[in-house]
């Protein structure tokens, strides 16, 4: 397998906020080109890569979805030479003061997010955590130049560059969910020398962070018999150590719950055990909060599964993941796909005329 780091680092160095995923799509397209038989872009912008099954007879289709969109910010108002902001996806305003950003105006402009100084705030707000409305972006450009370059609705992305820790861990913005795009890419690389018995659609979906409609529209179009969402989950770390969190660097989490087909859950547990791969079971008592919820209820319904990479500090510009976990997820998916044959999951399949 080739080194995944350069690809992942490039994915963590570009914007691609929900609804505006093209920069990420282009990078992924380049990487996937030699790994798939067909590439296309859906009407909403999701990237579809098809690895065709070897034979010519009708065979089932698997869709693996990893969303490529990222959270970020948007210009809400331009006032007194500053940009006021709103969020794209969920951003805790407490991570924003002192943050370096790029404003995607007529050209890319560097900026700093800051807060109104305490001395200029109403007494009830001084010294407190401030909401988005009391934060602003300072670009250093004068009022006139700023008005020329920036419009309401322009995107603002985090400019935090990826950080490598001894080649074992990586931090940056958009590891949610480009860590999973990297894992899916590793899967495709691993499958290069396999003849597949199923068609495999690898999908880099759009708009997961805001609407989940990227996955639902792609699932409708591709009509898979099974669907897998690859996403990130909460790693144990400072301030986050309860039952909703999982060990960092100790393998993927395998979802269980109403959004997960029990047969797929059982199958993935078995696979991980056969591979001697550490894992944790992630209870998802309602929705998985991933693309799997969109796939599950697409058209006549799709049995779905969720495999996740634990990361620390989710939805901040310094999300932190284990590179080993990313590779593990890639290998686990590849093993799953490579073992699919005409007898696999027969009871679950619908819509195949044999």
């Amino acid at each position, binding site marked *: 397998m080739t080194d995944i780091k350069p690809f992942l680092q490039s994915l963590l160095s570009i914007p691609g906020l929900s609804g505006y995923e093209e920069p990420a799509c282009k990078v992924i397209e380049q990487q996937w080109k030699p790994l798939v038989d067909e590439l296309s872009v859906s009407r909403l912008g999701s990237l579809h890569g098809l690895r065709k099954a070897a034979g010519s007879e009708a065979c089932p289709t698997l869709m693996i979805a990893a969303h490529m969109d990222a959270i970020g910010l948007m210009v809400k108002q331009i006032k007194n030479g500053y940009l006021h902001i709103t969020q794209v996806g969920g951003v805790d305003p*407490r*991570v924003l003061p*002192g943050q370096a950003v790029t404003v995607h105006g007529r050209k890319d402009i560097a900026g*700093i997010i800051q807060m109104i100084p305490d001395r200029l705030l109403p007494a009830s707000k001084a010294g407190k*955590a401030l909401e988005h409305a009391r934060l602003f972006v300072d670009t*250093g450009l004068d009022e006139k130049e700023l008005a020329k370059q920036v419009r309401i609705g322009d995107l603002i992305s985090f400019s935090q560059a990826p950080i490598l820790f001894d080649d074992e861990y990586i931090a940056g913005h958009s590891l949610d969910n480009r860590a999973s795009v990297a894992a899916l890419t590793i899967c495709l690389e691993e499958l290069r020398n396999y003849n597949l018995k199923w068609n495999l659609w690898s999908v880099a979906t759009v708009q997961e962070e805001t609407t989940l409609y990227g996955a639902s529209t792609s699932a409708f179009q591709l009509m898979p018999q099974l669907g897998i969402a690859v996403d990130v989950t909460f790693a144990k770390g400072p301030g986050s150590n309860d039952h909703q969190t999982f060990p960092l660097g100790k393998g993927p989490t395998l979802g269980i719950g109403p959004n997960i087909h029990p047969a797929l859950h059982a199958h993935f547990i078995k696979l991980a055990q056969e591979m001697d791969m550490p894992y944790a079971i992630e209870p998802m008592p309602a929705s998985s909060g991933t693309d799997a919820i969109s796939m599950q209820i697409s058209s006549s319904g799709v049995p779905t599964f969720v495999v996740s990479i634990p990361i620390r*500090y989710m939805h901040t510009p310094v999300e932190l993941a284990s590179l080993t976990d990313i590779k593990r997820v890639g290998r686990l998916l590849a093993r799953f796909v490579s073992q699919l044959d005409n007898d696999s999951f027969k009871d679950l399949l619908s819509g195949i005329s044999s």
Partner: protein
Amino acid sequence: MSTLKKISPPRIGKSQLDLLEKLSNAVSVSGAEDEVRQIVLEQVKPYADEVKQDALGNLLVKRHAQATNPLRVLLAAHMDEVGFMIVDDEGEGVFPFSPVGGIDPRQLAAKPVLVGKERLPGVIGAKPIHLSSPDERHNNYTFSSLRIDVSPANGKKVKVGDLATYATRFSRQGSSLFGKALDDRLGVATLIELLKRDHPDLELLFAFTVQEEVGLRGAQVAAYEFKPDLALVVDSTPAFDFVPETGENTQYNCRLGAGPAIYIADAGTLSDPRLIRFLAATAEKHAIPFQFRQPGGGGTDAGAIHKTGAGIPTVSISIPGRYAHTPILHARVKDWENTLLLLEAALNDINRGILSVDR
């Protein structure tokens, strides 16, 4: 004599900006100023008559006068910056930390840092928004709730007592400068430029000080050692020049782009009125923009210098900067250049006479 002297004014060009970049990116938290001191040493060596590193780590540099019984002028700028100290080890690469210098913990969540002598990469994390309640998000982060994370891979390389600071890299956009330690590397770079120029009538005493951010300690011993006739302190002061939600901004402290800020009074010093008047008159004479810093809190090395020994007439002059002590400060090239111009003009015009007028 100075009015007859032909001055070629100092300017901020590429070499000055390159030096500022190097200084701003260097890591020198109070008490461990080695990296900046090394850069300063290399810069001043070719011009200095005497260079000495004192017991606390100050770099004390002299440029001798050609005249006899010259006026002894101290110029001070601090080399240290705010940062953090690792105070405990929780395992898995996670470390509690305390501030070194005045830092607002609201500025820290989700920022990159550099840790220890190896400058290991680290991040100050933040709880995922999904796991916090809306109520919780109204509460400030505090030092006791934040952690530095160097990842499990590097956890063994960090020790209690190690220092850390922001990992911000210097950058420029238009007329703006962005960097982590512009307070007070702008002052350090200014002193280096002044040191390169000849002022033969003056005994020039340059103090590149340590530990300003934790109590003006370097400045106190430097002033004692140098025993100057007067002192000029070059620092960076916050510009709170925003439009408030209601009413007028009467507490802006100083404004970005309005030129060097001359101190009248801060929490630690009443500037010598003769020096205030002299600096203002010099600026007016040479048509250099300047502003008076609003009297108020805050402080510089002047707080220690002016009360050293039998007392030293002192004034501070600052380059305005937004967002002091946060990961990224914002200053203007023009303010820096005008500060340099004003100080150079002052050194050319200054003489013992300005201390013999009424206060």
